[in-house]
């Protein structure tokens, strides 16, 4: 087990190194840098003036030197300065992480709390009216773009309640934060809950047809015991894998949802930073997201052993 963990840890480092090279190179392959953008925004085309700005920001250095400087800084905990706000990148990124974390956490909770039980219900009541209704709902969740759902929700709030659930200032306490984030979390979590619901349903249906379920029933186990103790425990493994993947995918949905609900989290900030080619922000944020995604995958792998004792890790 220990050797497996060490191997996985080094694999994680290798993955992160690959991502760092990839994001660094990709950013510089995309046409235009911050100097191009600020000069274009001002309608200016003076090449000499632009070169001065590039020099000031260190963009005139060879790419390899810029990469080493960035990684060196990262190792020392120095993330550099945002080109746009001219503030330390860490000061720009750190306050936004809890906002997105709360939103993502709530969205995931929403997805699991609704997705798993409704998936089980749908499987247990297969081909009933309830099953059909839940299947239609889950299909809508998968087909409906998050930005459209978000806008529909906002329009409904304005029309029926005369208010709009968007972020306008830092929420004062837990309940106000919960109130603020729950609507966008539901909007972004709806897709994930639909996916989890469908997967739980199909996985449950497969398990419910197994011999040991029939045996459990023959033994006289209650229907609830069969469904939730014997079947769900075995059906949940693929669902856990998908939850892990969905957590990483949530980032994509959050970019749209943070924009529609005007939430100043890291996802929207990342898009804005890409638009401005604010390299220090983009590079460090992408690395942060990569670390989170890789860690979640690692945790999901570990969770398998807890959920299914038959799984053994070997070096």
């Amino acid at each position, binding site marked *: 087990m220990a050797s497996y963990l060490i191997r996985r840890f080094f694999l994680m480092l290798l993955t992160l190194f690959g991502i760092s090279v990839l994001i660094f190179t990709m950013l510089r392959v995309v046409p235009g840098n911050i100097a191009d953008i600020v000069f274009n925004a001002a*309608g200016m085309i003076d090449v000499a003036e632009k070169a001065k700005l590039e020099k000031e920001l260190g963009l005139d250095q060879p790419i390899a030197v810029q990469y080493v400087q960035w990684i060196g800084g990262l190792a020392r905990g120095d993330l550099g300065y945002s080109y746009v706000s001219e503030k330390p990148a860490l000061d720009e990124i750190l306050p936004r992480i809890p906002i997105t974390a709360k939103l993502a956490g709530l969205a995931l909770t929403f997805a699991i709390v609704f997705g798993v039980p409704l998936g089980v219900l749908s499987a247990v009541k297969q081909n009933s009216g309830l099953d059909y209704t839940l299947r239609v709902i889950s299909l809508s969740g998968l087909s409906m773009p998050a930005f459209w759902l978000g806008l529909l929700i906002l329009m409904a709030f304005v029309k029926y309640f005369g208010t709009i659930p968007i972020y306008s200032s830092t929420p004062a306490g837990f309940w106000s934060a919960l109130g603020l984030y729950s609507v966008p979390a539901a909007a972004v979590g709806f897709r994930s809950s639909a996916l989890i619901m469908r997967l739980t349903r199909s996985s449950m249906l497969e398990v419910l047809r197994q011999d040991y379920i029939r045996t459990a029933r023959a033994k006289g186990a209650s229907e609830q015991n069969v469904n939730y103790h014997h079947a769900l425990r075995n059906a949940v493994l693929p669902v856990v894998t998908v939850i892990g993947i969905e957590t990483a995918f949530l980032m994509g949905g959050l970019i749209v949802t943070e924009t529609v609900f005007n939430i100043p989290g890291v996802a929207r900030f990342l898009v804005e930073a890409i638009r401005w080619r604010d390299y220090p922000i983009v590079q460090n944020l992408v690395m942060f997201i990569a670390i989170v995604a890789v860690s979640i995958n690692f945790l999901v792998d570990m969770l398998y052993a807890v959920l299914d004792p038959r799984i053994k890790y070997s070096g």
Partner: protein
Amino acid sequence: MGTKLIALATAILASLTLSTAQAAEPKHGGILKVYHRETPPSLSIHEEATFSVNAPAMGLYNNLVVYDQHKPQNSMGTIVPELATSWAWSADNLKLTFKLREGVKWHDGQPFTAKDVKCTFDLLQGKGQDKFRKNPRKDLFSNISDVATNGDFEVTLQLKRPQPSLVAMLASGYTPMYSCHVTAAQMRTHPIGTGPFKFVEFKQNESITLTKNPDYWKKGLPYLDGIQYTIISNRATAVLAFVAGNVDMTFPTEMTAALIKDVKSQDPTAVCEIAPINVSTNLIMNLESPPFNNIELRKAMALALDRKSFIDIIFQGQADAGGTLLPPPEGVWGMPPDMLKTIPGYGDVNKSREQARAIMAKFGYSADKPLKIKVSTRNLATYRDPAVVLIDQLKSIYIDAELDPVESSQWFAKVARNDYSVGLNLTGNGIDDPDQAFYENYACGSERNYTHYCNKELEALFDKQSVETDVEKRKKMVWDIDKKLQEDVARPILMHARSGTCWKPYVKNMTIMNNSAYNGYRYEDVWLDK
């Protein structure tokens, strides 16, 4: 009975008059909440070239002189003193002397003096030790040869040649005074001005917060306790936030005619105004390489344009046809409609296109053998949409055009390299003045003369109109120049946009400028009737 009725009517009238008077009496307090369409690059007005900066930042600063904030049409006659108490020209019109206001303090408590004025011009002209990171309007002040201070409260600008419109440039929202003791870099992150509002915080993607300057030199102002700009980049969300009352006002000029209709249907009390913003959509052609180095072909292009269709399709009728300068009545210097009609391409579209086809046929083009070109433009909806209409219109004169959307950051660099054949561009004018429009966009060698159009004879006329002090005489000269620019097909103007702004009825004293989108955001006497 009759007496009683009269008394009752008098009482009602008196109470109505009283309530109107009370409503008209400005109230102190309250935070004006406005949504901002994007995160502005900084709040240092001199370094930026978008009213995304002017709108939130103009309240932080003062100019020497400024356009009267409650006269919608900016003109020489609406310029009022601000940090200067008066100004005077020397007899030869080569010296402009300003008497400065005493007792004005920067937001950090330092006194404002003539040295600050000199520092501002040193920054603008790149003469001082401290430099702007970028200086988009340095050419506007190239006629100033020296800035001399005479004591702490008098400053004289020495000009190379007479230029009456310099005062207009100084009155623009783009020309605030900066202090000597705050660096250009600091001004980008924590601006210090003398204006009615002080900078509190600028959070990227989130908000810009300004608070009342209690030591403002205009006693009793501002009325507002502060202004809160919430950055809402998604327009649908922003408009809904306005309808729901989360903000008191939309971002200036951000509302289209269709959006205003939508807002009014949901909130009939909303006050909305549509006005020209002095931003023209224009056609640029590569004058240095074939085929458009040939003026005949350029003329054919100009004759193919159906401006009414552009205006109807892109702006639902809310735009104006005109030349380089914004057309009247809002524009001060634009050609009168009768004159405009005499320019090729501004009259009957069918007849013009007949002429255009004849020109194209002379060059061997026909419906079967069209001229194939690319229409390049920035990959933004405001550029792309008119480019698509243009492509459709060019078909009528045997031009088979293809859209070439260019990554926004690469647009001006591509144009500067002459790496295009035909392009569609937007040009914003900070002030409604011929000097800015002519020298910036059409003078030989100007950085923003993207087509490199160069006509020395016409440039001599630029200088001639620039020194003219008689407004009516100057107007006629300007019209002739503008007409010649259109006839030369230097940069055919497709239309001048109009845009809207909405606010809640309790926002008082709000005036929308109607010939510039850059000059009307001081907000010192805006108040909330809540």
